[in-house]
């Protein structure tokens, strides 16, 4: 068990040189650590926000492209549009759903994509 009183006594009995070094070092490391943690969290949240914005813009483009295919009941064109998302390796799956809640067209890539799709299905009920 750490005894705070014992630690304080030990610290007070240190030579002044060691005390001064410990004080400066502890202060510097604390300031540096706090700055790093703040920077790290801020960068993470900012990067994720950018990613979300990027995906939404992509979804809007796909939605516009597939709208005419849906209106003309051209499923092949819609799937072709969705297949164009294969260029982005981080997209796991994509769907186009019509107003009757029927899945009109879909795109899935890799195992991770299927897992992600499964999770989405469960969330959608």
């Amino acid at each position: 068990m750490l005894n705070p009183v014992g630690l304080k006594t030990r610290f007070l009995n240190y030579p002044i040189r060691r005390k001064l070094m410990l004080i400066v070092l502890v202060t510097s490391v604390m300031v540096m650590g706090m700055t790093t943690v703040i920077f790290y969290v801020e960068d993470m949240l900012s990067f994720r926000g950018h990613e979300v914005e990027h995906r939404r813009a992509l979804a809007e483009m796909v939605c516009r492209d597939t709208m005419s295919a849906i209106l003309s009941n051209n499923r092949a064109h819609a799937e072709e549009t969705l297949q164009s998302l294969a260029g982005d390796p981080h997209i796991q799956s994509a769907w186009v759903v019509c107003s009757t809640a029927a899945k009109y067209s879909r795109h899935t890539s890799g195992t991770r994509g299927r897992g992600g799709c499964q999770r989405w299905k469960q969330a959608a009920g």
Partner: protein
Amino acid sequence: MLAPGALTDTAGGLSGIFASIKTVVTCSDGSGCTTVIISDTQELESRMKGYLGLVLLVLVGVSVLGYLVTYRLQRIITDPLISLVNTMERIRATRDYSLRVGAGRTDEIGILADCFNQMLCEVQTHGEQLHLYQDKLSELIAIRTAELVRVKEEAEATIANRLDAAGQNVTKPVFAGREWTGTPLSQDERRMLYALMDCIDDEVWFISARPGLVMANRTAGETLGVSLSDCLDQEAYAEGFEIYYIDLNKLRRADLPPFCDLQGTSVRRMEVALLTDGDVQRFQLINAEPYRNREGELSGTVFVATDITGQKESTVSQRAVSGRLIEGEESLRKSLAAELHDEIGRDLAAMHIYSESIRNSLPAKTRQRLDDKLCFVHNLLDDMSCKVANIVSELRPPLLDDFGLVTALKALADTVSRRHLIEVDLLVVDEFPPLGAIELSLYRIAQEAINNAVKHSGATSVLLILEKDEKQVRLVVFDNGCGFDPGSHNDTAKRPSWGMTMMRERAESCGGSFSLESTPGKGTRITAIVRID
């Protein structure tokens, strides 16, 4: 038109940051078309991992760099301090006050070093001066010692010459075949000593450090039950002196002088009580003075015993008279207080009532005209009643009879404090049961002491301490007044001190003692100790 749908993550909290991103966009133009894209956060994870590694690396690097920089920079502060400490350690170990701490800085540490150097400089200077004085003193001592040795040798040579010239003109007292210890006396000195002893009426004893060897004058010899003719120094008697040499070893223990046991002790003065053969008690005042030989060894002690029986009897008689006087005074006070209370007080109360009655019976106009005068008479009567009550209280404090000494002293302290606007405190160290007649004596002593402090010393604070043990009660009265010289106070021709005398008489009449300590400008302390019978 397109409307972005709600973006929801499949999990919340911190772990949700690294969960998949689900993007739902619904067209709002009536087609009901919805696009859903689910993407992973692998890029975010890899970026964060990269950052984490970099941050740890930077932290380690900064710590190492900080350590190196701190290690270098802290020396700016610590080096002079450590130098100061090392110098102090060296000075303590070597006592070399010529050492100095390196200076040259103007910050706090530099000032500290300068002050320390200055202190060292002063210590060194003083040490050198001390050594110088010591050397001078040693030289002076050596010179003086040489002079003393020379003078001593000259004196010894002179004495030796005189002794040689005088031949057998030096004698030593001899008793029972043994040599008297002490410095040899010349004939003249011996005669002078004998004459001195012979003309003193008191008992004079020279008791040798050797037990049992005694030289005594006639008065001393007569007190011992020995045949004086056997002890008479015939040589001295031939010269007209009556001096006796007595062997105390041949006496019974009961016949020895009472001060024989004081030989070699530090007692210089004492009183002893003796019981003579007729069972008559006698008192002696013994004064003792040891004398030493040239080598500083104790040769013997001179005792002078003075008979003080008469003085003692006179003191006892005087004390008895004082006691009776005090009793008479108290009795007089008591009767006077009773008379004042019963007669004057009653008459004053009656006058008060009658004057009120007269006032009420006057016609309205007359009453209005005489109202001021009647009021004056009323106030005068009230004032007189108060004064009579105060006098009665001082003559015989009713609280003392009814509630005891402590309550009466508290009331006295309060009254004096209120009347004279000074601080009077009473400190009672122990509980006080009724003490009988001595309470009145203690009260009067306290009353007189407080009155003296108020009237003569100009004190602003008086403290009474009352404490008691199994055998005695002690009353101490301090004041912070101007004080006085007790020596001049005792000189009654210059300044009569009836109050002090009465306090002393009161304490001694109760078998106690009274003492007074005072220094001009430093207040007065009066202590009365009374025995509890």
